[in-house]
């Protein structure tokens, strides 16, 4: 394998990996505030891309993306209001079944509104043949868009959760819902906000990656499985670790193509998921101190 080839694999690995990371962060945000694993997370990514695509003929790309994100966020909020809020002390199993059901529902609605055709948003800059050469490797500028926007999402979320009052209130809800209520925090609002945030970042990711990986009504479930693997690999609830885990899975998959038949690519994620669940359910990077405090 030449050096350029290795670079090429690395770039394609971190591109896919950063999308996995965003899906995993979406899982984490909702998991932290509610304890629910939202298996409809992949559908937010699909919705972002497919809705933006429908708007592109009638408006500039940027506006189409913004509108798609807004609509997906509204759907996220609605899901919480209609399906999650009304349940009092639901069991984890019931919640999982509900979110899987939602994911199927959204997929079927998408199939009904659109169709089973594969679409792609136009490249944000240039076209599919534009490329930038970095150390001899040819890279689409869209790759830089994906990496840049993912980085922006991660930094913005960190800032939000650690330096804004609402972000801290959301973390408080995650840590102890009853205590958050006693502090005067409207916990229902925070839960709703967590669905909005997850939907929004999912939709953004769905738009930025669409020119590279295409958008399809059924793309949500495989993405949700990858994202879930990454979330578990990083340790549920830990978003910084999810980024590392996402890049790791992306790179593994990317390099596997050069060693194994293409068909084995998806086996990697499932194998990792099972191995982690067996041997290190707290995730790869979970610090002992935090684990101890969380069960405190």
């Amino acid at each position, binding site marked *: 394998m030449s050096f350029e080839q290795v670079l090429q694999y690395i770039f394609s690995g971190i591109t896919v990996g950063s999308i996995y990371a965003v899906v995993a962060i979406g899982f984490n945000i909702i998991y932290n505030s509610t304890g629910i694993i939202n298996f409809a997370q992949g559908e937010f990514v699909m919705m972002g891309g497919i809705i933006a695509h429908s708007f592109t003929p009638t408006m500039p790309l940027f506006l189409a993306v913004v509108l798609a994100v807004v609509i997906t966020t509204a759907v996220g909020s609605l899901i919480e209001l209609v399906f999650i809020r009304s349940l009092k002390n639901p069991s984890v199993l019931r919640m999982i079944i509900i979110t899987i059901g939602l994911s199927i529902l959204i997929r079927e609605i998408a199939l009904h509104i659109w169709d089973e055709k594969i679409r792609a948003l136009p490249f944000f800059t240039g076209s599919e043949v534009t490329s930038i050469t970095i150390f001899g490797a040819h890279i689409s500028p869209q790759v830089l868009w994906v990496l840049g926007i993912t980085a922006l999402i991660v930094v913005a979320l960190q800032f939000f959760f650690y330096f804004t009052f609402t972000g*801290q209130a959301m973390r408080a809800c995650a*840590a*102890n819902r009853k205590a*958050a209520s*006693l*502090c005067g925090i*409207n916990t229902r609002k925070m839960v709703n906000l967590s669905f909005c945030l997850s939907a929004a970042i999912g939709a953004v990711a769905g738009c930025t990656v669409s020119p590279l990986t295409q958008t399809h009504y059924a793309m949500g479930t495989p993405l949700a499985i990858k994202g879930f693997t990454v979330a578990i690999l990083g340790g549920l609830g830990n978003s910084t670790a999810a980024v590392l885990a996402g890049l790791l899975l992306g790179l593994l998959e990317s390099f596997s193509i050069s060693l194994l038949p293409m068909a084995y690519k998806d086996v990697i994620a499932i194998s990792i998921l099972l191995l982690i669940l067996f041997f290190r359910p707290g995730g790869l990077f979970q610090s002992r101190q935090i684990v*101890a405090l969380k069960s*405190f």
Partner: protein
Amino acid sequence: MIRIRNLESGYGKLRVLKGISIHVNTGEIVAIIGGNGAGKTTLLYTIANLVKPFSGTITVLGTDSTGLSPEKTVALGCSLVPEGRQLFPTMTVRENLILGSYPLMKKREKRRLPEEMERIYSLFPRLKERENQLAGTLSGGEQQMLAIGRALMSDPQFIMMDEPSMGLAPIIARDIFNKIEDLRNHGRTILLVEQNARAALRIADRGYVMETGNLIIEGSSEELMDNPDVGRAYLGKDFKRISE
């Protein structure tokens, strides 16, 4: 200050409080004592609106607060220091305190934050030393100080405390009780639930004795201290007499 009439409350079908009526006047410390499972915590949770009452009325600081949301109840100026502290263990002391000021923030009184913070730190200087430590790593006494500090951050007029001395060494517990007295002397009104009846009645003005969801005795602290039934059940007087 607060008045509760015929309060019935519980969980699902389980009726824990069976018609409780109490009042707390401005500037008083009122103690509620009672054995395990009497319903003391349930009473405080119901007043804080974490548990919805079956019937009865709660008036807090001149407002009917029956059935409000917990966050609106806090906004009225009615704070609870819950049983078992209920801190945010993975957040720092400072962050825990800031979260306590949420009602002020909502009222757009952000500028009061440093002042409130200073007030808590002068009440509990230990917390200032531990400002950047994670709450979960504090000692039991420090955690209790933080729980009280956090509840005070919204500058409440009425404060409920659920067993603040639980699990503390006697000398630390005494310190906490002294601070509670300080709070009263600075004009706050306090409803204190305690297993440590002797210590609670020492600082309280009045008290109620609760048993299986009913109030069975009420009176001034002195009256309760001298009441033979209270003495036998909650102050360990018989034990003392036997051992003497």
